[in-house]
């Protein structure tokens, strides 16, 4: 493989923290295409596509795409089945009232 135009998912932390309060680089995500579960930090990020494109390190399908315009952020997560985000125990999942 000679394509070295990508970075690690680790660099998504800053841009994603414009949208979310937590550090998503330690979150895990499941690839919709090949089912692999891995840390977002392990994604291959192509920063020169329009916006940031995060590809699965296993099958190279797009899992995440983040595009910023002056007034909006578009986060396309269609290639990810779910994200699993570590949360401190003092914020339990809210139960029914």
């Amino acid at each position: 493989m000679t394509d070295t135009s990508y970075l690690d998912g680790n660099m998504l932390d800053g841009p994603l923290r414009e949208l979310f309060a937590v550090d998503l680089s330690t979150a895990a995500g499941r690839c919709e295409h090949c089912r692999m579960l891995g840390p977002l930090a392990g994604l291959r990020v192509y920063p020169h596509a329009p916006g940031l494109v995060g590809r699965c390190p296993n099958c190279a399908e797009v899992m995440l795409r983040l595009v910023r315009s002056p007034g909006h952020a578009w986060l396309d997560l269609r290639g990810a089945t779910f994200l699993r985000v570590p949360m401190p125990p003092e914020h339990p999942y809210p139960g029914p009232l």
Partner: protein
Amino acid sequence: MTAPLRWRVARLCERRVETPTAHTLVLEAPGWPGHLPGQHVDVRLTASDGYQAARSYSLAGPAEADRITLTVQRVPDGEVSPYLIDVYAEGDPVEVRGPVGGWFVWRPEETAPVLLVAGGSGVVPLMAMVRARRAAGSRVPFRLLYSVRTPADVFYADELRRRVRDDLGLDVAYVYTREAPQDWRGEPHRIGLADVNSHGWPPELEPLCYVCGPTGFVETVADLLVGLGHQSRRVKTERFGPTG
């Protein structure tokens, strides 16, 4: 970890020349929340016409009194790094956002042996780990394998020499790709299996491996480590961008 992330204004307070193409910048960042070794900041420049450019830079050491340290290598015809090296002057503002990156970090509570493999400016976050190890009084054995073009390209050369002498349990080995010092055994070459094998830890010791540098370098070394039997989840990587 869950504090909102905002851009803050930092100012240059000290500049140290590391090599002809790399400078260490000490920034005054009031209210800096602290960070772990291996984390980075995003640095943003704004031109007078409003045009903005942001790049990531690793934190080179622990924060001291609202000061953070970066080491920037000039990428010829780059947009941000030549500005930071050649133009950015004492007292000038830049915006920084961080710390960011919670994955490529080493925690001083860790007890596993550590292998650090650096290519060029990739030594920066690894040096933060070496410095944090010392600051925490950790006895965890550390090995740093550092690939550089020539002896003149070594960042933190004096400090590394001193630490190998004073920080017990720290080893540093170099790989030269273009020009080696007289007393170095072998011919200049790109890092390969023999280097990683002889200067790394055997996989049975279950070391934590941190690999940082240009994307192609990281790719090569991470593949070698996994090929030697290291578990891929114990091989953490930080890619800095295209192979220079």
